[in-house]
């Protein structure tokens, strides 16, 4: 078995299987929640729940990530806010605005889009990796984090970290030959794809539920947080 064969396998059949499991798993999680029973809200609202939800989404995507200090708890927990924010920013930038990944989307969806210059993506990727370390350390030493963290949380960190660092190494041709790094990257990505529906990393899907509920709760009371 040589690395070229491993690469072909991890880009081909292994990726296919991982993608299937990812799609099936996420649908499973989604339907499991949707069909659990939602009771009708019979309380008459003062304000609009719909607008509350929309507002909540917009604020969550357009405002809070960029000026997190509007939350007055920011000063008490800057590491989580900043590192968490930088991690997500880097992640989204690399996955959606980075040229190599855009080409992956293009092959899956049929269309591509303009991307950011490589040096910028590279910087954001490096920043995201540094942020990951900060988050890991924080999770280990902050008293609240120690209280609520279980093994699964460390596993989540690891399985997200490996694709990031292998991708970075790949781009910079660090330490190993390219097909070795590419294989490692693909293997770690496939494992992550399989793990997402089995773990809390799927929070990106439930974000829409919780944010909508949040907005509706406050919109109902005509409060604009």
């Amino acid at each position, binding site marked *: 078995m040589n690395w070229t064969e491993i690469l072909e396998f991890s880009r081909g059949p292994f990726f296919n299987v991982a993608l299937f499991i990812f799609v099936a798993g996420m649908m499973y999680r989604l339907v499991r929640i949707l069909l*659990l029973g*939602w009771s009708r809200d019979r*309380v008459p609202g003062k304000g609009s729940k719909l607008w509350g939800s929309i507002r909540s989404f917009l604020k969550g995507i357009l405002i809070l990530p960029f000026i997190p200090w509007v939350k007055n708890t920011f000063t008490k927990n800057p590491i989580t806010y900043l590192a968490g924010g930088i991690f997500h920013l880097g992640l989204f930038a690399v996955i959606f605005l980075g040229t190599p990944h855009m080409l992956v989307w293009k092959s899956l969806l049929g269309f591509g889009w303009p991307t950011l210059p490589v040096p910028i993506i590279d910087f954001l990727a490096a920043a995201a990796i540094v942020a990951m370390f900060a988050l890991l350390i924080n999770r280990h030493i902050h008293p*609240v984090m120690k209280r*609520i963290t279980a093994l699964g949380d460390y596993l989540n960190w690891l399985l997200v970290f490996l694709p990031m660092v292998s991708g970075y190494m790949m781009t910079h041709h660090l330490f190993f030959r390219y097909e070795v790094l590419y294989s490692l990257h693909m293997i770690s990505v496939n494992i992550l794809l399989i793990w997402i529906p089995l773990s*809390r990393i799927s929070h990106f899907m*439930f974000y829409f539920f*919780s944010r909508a509920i949040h907005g509706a709760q406050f919109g109902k009371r005509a409060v604009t947080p």
Partner: protein
Amino acid sequence: MKSKQAMDTFVQETGGWVAAQLEACTRCGLCAEACHFYEATGNPDYAPVWKMELLRRAYEQRFTFSGKWKQALGIEKGVTEEDLTEWSRLVYEACTVCNKCAMVCPMGIQIGPLIHEVRSAMAAAGVVPDDLMKATQNQLQVGSPLGVSDDMFEERLEWITDEWEVDIPIDKKGADTLVVFTSIELMKFPTNFAAIATIMNKAGENWTISSKGREVVNFGFFEGSHEHTVLFLKRVFDAAKELEVKRIVISECGHAYDAFRWTAANLMDVPVDIEITHILAVIAGFIRQGKIKLRNEAHKNGTISFHDACKIQRRGGLINEPREILKILAGDSFKELTPNREQAMCCGGGGGVISIKEADPLRFAAFGLKVEQMKKAGTQSVCMTCSNCRLQFSEGVAHYQLDVKVRGLSEMVADALV
């Protein structure tokens, strides 16, 4: 079989609404920083996400594969009686269900209501702090958590009408408005009765109180018991229906506003043609409509700040009203606390905490944060629209030996009537 009862309640209470939010939690721990109990003590057990841990565990172990495996493999334990005892203390004594945590959660999870679900399970399992249960029993048997009986109520009311020479109609059938007071006001802040009565009369409102629906406090709500909550709500609704009123006005009470206005319809059949509102909204309405007029700058006791009550402002939406009123009453003497409005910090006494003796050190520790706020703002007087907060503030200010006057807003309005 306490744990079974608790688990059954967890299962029952968990629908899509609860489950979606439990799935959304990423264990980021940011909610801790919003909780005044954690902030005051640094105890990680008071992190909101930890308080609802039993709900999460129950959900995962009953409804998901991963939870079932973790339990089967011994990675996670089931919910035991020891757990119930420990968490009972956390959710009843170290939480006021103020829901500030929900404001901070990046996912927007409504942690307050979820902790309320944990209380439901505790109530079903009968693992509720004795003091709180005693108050609930009082309300069940005598009609008030403070143990105010019908006779005591009548007596007290007579004294108030005499002392303040104010007209308080009782059981007036066909009135427009039914005002329901708290026994805290009756016993500790009787001026509220007088003040609100004066305002209603001055505004020419066709109003009444009820001798049957005389308690707006709902200890079933604090307990988390569906049965008791509905029972206490029903007493007021029945009285309202009997008196054929068009609206129910909650006097200065926070959780009652939450229970009646924002929760009741989902727990029971409520009369559809009866509006539910809070005295703060009513007073603000009177002022806007010109039904009452206030003396400008009537307040003369130095810098005055407003304490936003969790259930009336953050969870009730009546945020601008007090500021409109205080603008007239205090003008430039008004100074906001920081944070304020929907981001305001809880007084530390709500959610039934004030009724539990064991929780006294905790609630005074939490009140320390309010003391810091007031010191920073240079507050000399503080007013609010919730009697529970007022009780906490009164006791807290004494505990910290602060030279700050604690006032109710309705009182201040009544004093400034032209």
